């Protein structure tokens, strides 16, 4: 099932500069797996070597952050939009 995936600026160079691409899958894990197979340059930035969601990105199905759903097992309904954004964090650290 093809779904629309919106990319953050930092990943767009790996997709020919496009802000939105199409990937296939019924779950977030399948969609992201298809995405990195099509655009291998994104591999280490979206998923870890172990295959889990990278901590430096947030992934949403429509309005919902998948970390608060079923993570990579989150279902992606027909017509849903998947958005990837960088996790924005930092601080003085002391």
């Amino acid at each position, binding site marked *: 099932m093809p779904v629309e995936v919106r990319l953050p600026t930092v990943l767009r160079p790996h997709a020919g500069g496009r802000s939105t691409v199409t990937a296939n899958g019924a779950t977030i894990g399948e969609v992201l797996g298809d995405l990195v197979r099509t655009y291998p340059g994104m591999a280490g930035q979206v998923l870890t070597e172990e295959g889990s969601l990278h901590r430096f990105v947030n992934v949403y199905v429509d309005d919902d952050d998948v970390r608060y759903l079923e993570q990579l097992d989150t279902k992606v309904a027909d017509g849903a939009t998947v958005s990837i954004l960088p996790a*924005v964090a*930092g601080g003085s650290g002391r």
Partner: protein
Amino acid sequence: MLRLPAPVYTQIVGHCLSGLPDEACGLLGGDPVSGAVVTCYPTRNVAGSAKLYTVDPGEHLRADRDAEAKGTAIMGVFHSHTHTDAYPSPTDVAQAPDPEWHYVLVSLRDTHPMVRSFRITGGRIDEEPVIVESSGRPAHQGSSR
């Protein structure tokens, strides 16, 4: 160069002060290439800490959509350092998500807030001038204090 309309500058500093004693954070919408900021998106610091910040992911998504609807883009992030310099910490550098972004630091250590802006590329830190614009005219140049 970062160009801040005066109302955006006020929003940034006000949000940082209202976040005390914790660090405060938010996103900036505008043109990443020219450095012209159009919109300030104050966000919740879900880390709830005086030493760390994490932009609320849900608010980030809403800000991203709003910026796109305005024909702009999220072009940077601001956050406060409550008791240290307005300079990127090793934590800030390690977690800087996008080399095209502008990283605005607000130090609340001294009596007057200090606002500075940086580009962070592959671990390298470059400070950029901050211009606060009042009614389209530059009101101040350089680190803003």
